[in-house]
C-alpha cells in the first residue's frame, strides 16, 4: 500500500470519489424522501465515475488520458440519466396516487395498498 499515491492529483480525485460514494450511500439509507434517494444514487454514481476517471488519469496523466474509461464513463452518465428519469416519473406517480413521497418502511402487499388508496 502506498499512501503517497493518495496525494497525487489522480489520488486526490480518487479519494474524493470514494468519499462521495460514502456520502451517497449514507443519504440513500437515511433519507426517506424519494427525490433525495434519487439524488443519493446519482451521487454514488458520480463518485464511481470520478474514481474510475482518476484511475484512468493515472495511466496517462494530462489532457487526453486513457480514452477507454472516458468512453465508459460517458456511457455510464447517460445510463444514470435514464434511470433517474424513470425513478423520477415513478416518484411523481406515487405522489399523485398516494400523496406519499417516501417508501413505506417495510415492503407490503401491493394488493393491500390498492384497497387503501
Amino acid at each position, binding site marked *: 500500500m502506498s499512501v503517497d499515491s493518495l496525494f497525487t492529483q489522480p489520488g*486526490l480525485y480518487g479519494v*474524493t470519489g470514494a468519499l462521495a460514494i460514502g*456520502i451517497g450511500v449514507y443519504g440513500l439509507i437515511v433519507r426517506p*424522501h424519494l427525490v433525495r434517494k*434519487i439524488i443519493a444514487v446519482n451521487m454514488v454514481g458520480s463518485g464511481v465515475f470520478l474514481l474510475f476517471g482518476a484511475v484512468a488519469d493515472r495511466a*496517462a496523466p494530462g489532457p*487526453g488520458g*486513457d480514452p477507454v474509461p472516458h468512453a465508459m464513463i460517458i456511457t455510464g452518465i447517460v445510463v444514470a440519466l*435514464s*434511470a433517474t428519469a424513470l425513478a423520477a416519473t415513478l416518484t411523481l406517480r406515487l405522489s399523485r396516487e398516494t400523496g406519499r413521497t417516501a417508501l413505506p418502511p417495510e415492503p407490503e402487499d401491493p394488493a393491500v395498498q390498492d384497497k387503501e388508496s
Partner: protein
Amino acid sequence: MTAFPLLDPALCFVILTTAVLAVAIRTVFAAVVSFIVFGLLMAIAWVRLGAVDVALTEAAIGAGLTGVLLLSTVARIAKHRADRGDDVPILEGPEPDPAPTDPLPGLATQSLAIVLSAAVAAALVAAVALLPVPAPGLVAEVGSRLSETGVESPVTAVLLAYRGYDTLLEIVVLLFALLGVWSLTADARWGGQPGLRHLARPDGVMAYLGRLLPPIGLLVGVYLFWIGGYRPGGAFQAGTVLAAVWLLAVMAGLVPIPKVSGIRLRLALVIGPAVFLAIGLAGYPLHGAFLGYPPAIAKVLIILIEAGLTISIATILGLLVAGAPEERPS
C-alpha cells in the same frame, strides 16, 4: 498545475461540501440545487483530469438534464400537494423533509448507515492506495489502431468503433427509460401529449428567446456532432443541446409537443439504434463480424451512425424531460 497547487484540493473540498449539502440540507429543493452545483463542479473536475468529453457530458447530462428532471419533479410534487390541499407553496416554499407523513429512520438504521458508508469509503480509499504504480491502461492500443476507425478523437473511436456495442446498448437503455416513463401514463391519456405545458406569453421574453435561440442551438448541435470525430463532442452532447433547444421552443409555444403515438415521433425514436443495428449487421458481410467496419468506409459509417443517434438522442432526451403524457388524445 504547479501554478496553483491548492486548486485541486480546493475543488475536491468544494465538491464534497456540496455533496454533504445535497444529503444534509433541510429542504428537498435545496438538495436538488446542491446536487446541480455538485454536478457542475464535477464537470470542472473532469477538465482537471483531462477528460473534456466527460466534462461536457457531465455538464450537459449529469448536472443539466438530471437537474432539470429533478427540479421539475420537485415542482410537480409540490403541485400535487397543493392540489390535495396540503397547503405548500410552489417551489420556493421550504418543503419539509421528511414530510409529515414520511417516516424517519431509527437510531439503529442511522448508525448502521454511518458504519456502512464509512466502511465502503474506507475500503475504496484503501483500494485507490493499492492501485499498482506503473498504471496499466489501453492508451497505446487505442492509439495504434486509430487509423482503422477513420476518426481522430480517441474517445469517439472507443465509443463508436472499439466499444460500439456498449454504445448500441446504451442508446437502447435510453430508449427503454423513455418507454418506462411512458408506461406510467394513465390509460385514458395514452396517445396524448406529454405533460410539458408552455408557460410563455406570446409577447414574453420566453417567446423571444424561443425564437432567437433555436437557430443558434441547432448550429451548436450540428457543430458538436460534426466535431466529435476530431475533438471532444459527439452524438450525446449534440443530442442534449438539440433536445434543450427543442424543449425551449416547446415551452415558448412555438412548436407543439408531439403526441406519443405519432408515427414520425416513433420513427425519430428508433432511427438511431436502427441505423446502428443495420450497419452492425452489414458488418457481417463487409468485415466478417458484427459491427465490423471496413477501414476504407469506416468514417462514413460512423458519421451515419452518429447522425441517426443524434436525432434519436435529442428526441428521447426531450421527451424524458417532458414526462409521461398528461393530455388526453383529442
